[in-house]
């Protein structure tokens, strides 16, 4: 949690049109900050600006611009910023990151402080690995969103290699209550399984977050061999060379 006193304010300037794995880049970065336990972050959208390429981008209805400037700001302790800066630089691509010393006069009030798990660097995986299956209920929620969705976002923010969510048609867990997927009666009342594969270290490093998020459920680890891990970069993932920078 943020303490009064010295801190660092980080500002990231991006283009509205930039995407990362098919979602807007700013929301990728915001998820990353959220699940790494940053105290708070704000995204603002500019109405006009220009960047390194000296192209003026404005919100003009005739020429609807998808390259309006986006600004993400957050304030954190120096240690925390140093810990996440590497990944942040990678995510921001050709955007600009600015840091300045600041002083926290009064931190925001938090009801529940959140610890962040240490995350190993992204690495190519092959050979021995582990599969982590998480069994929860479809109606379980975490901070007002479906738990399975929050878990997928958290795994993505922590660089887990891949995860798939399966919806069961019938099942039961700790409750001994049978969950039947009846599309007409209870549309969201099924057992759900998340299946994630990565190295044992990275999955274990992610466990403290599972501890916090899963109130009731089962987590199952088994050893697997990764035969092939290949992905193709999406066309939209290429950082645009026309990123405007506001101010």
């Amino acid at each position, binding site marked *: 949690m943020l303490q009064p006193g010295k801190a660092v304010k980080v500002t990231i300037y991006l283009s509205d049109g930039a995407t990362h794995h098919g979602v807007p880049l700013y929301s990728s970065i915001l998820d990353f900050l959220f699940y790494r336990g940053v105290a708070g972050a704000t995204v603002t959208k500019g109405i006009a600006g220009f960047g390194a390429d000296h192209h003026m981008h404005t919100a003009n209805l005739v020429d609807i611009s998808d390259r309006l400037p986006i600004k993400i700001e957050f304030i954190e302790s120096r240690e925390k910023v140093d810990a996440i800066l590497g990944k942040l630089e990678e995510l921001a691509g050709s955007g600009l990151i600015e840091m300045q010393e600041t002083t926290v006069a009064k931190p925001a009030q938090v009801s529940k402080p959140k610890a962040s798990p240490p995350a190993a660097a992204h690495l190519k995986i092959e050979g021995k690995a582990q599969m982590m299956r998480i*069994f929860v209920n479809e109606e379980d929620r975490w901070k007002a969103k479906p738990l399975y969705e929050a878990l997928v976002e958290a795994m993505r923010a922590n660089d887990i290699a891949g995860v798939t969510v399966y919806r069961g048609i019938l099942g039961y867990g*700790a409750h*001994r209550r049978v969950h039947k997927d009846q599309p007409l009666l209870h549309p969201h009342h099924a057992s759900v399984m998340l299946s994630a594969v990565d190295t044992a270290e990275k999955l274990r490093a992610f466990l403290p977050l599972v501890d916090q998020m899963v109130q009731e459920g*089962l987590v199952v680890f088994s050893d697997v061999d990764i035969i092939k891990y290949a992905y193709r970069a999406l066309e939209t993932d290429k950082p645009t060379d026309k990123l405007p920078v506001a101010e």
Partner: protein
Amino acid sequence: MKEQFNASMLRVHFGENDRWQGKPLHEAILAQCLELGIAEAVVFRGIEGYGSASRIRHASHWPRCKDAPIQMSIIDTDEQIAKLIPYLDSMVEEGLVAASPVEVIRYSNPATSPM
């Protein structure tokens, strides 16, 4: 509450049309798991597959003509799983049962769980 222990995971594969004493087989196996007090059992419906009968199974949106592949994941301690095996032997006429050793973490809420 958090418990951590070593366990076994069974995956049972068969078809959605398979029956046991007039009941869908997956419902019958799930009921047996409940009776034995098995910790976790979930039934998944695949969208396409083939198995021991070597015929391709498709899931269909037309409710009357479906024979989707079914996979059940069943998890508990080795002793509990051993109790279930004889039932599977008699109930699954055509299918596949795969077992693997796993490590389990169980989160439960003692206030709401009858266990």
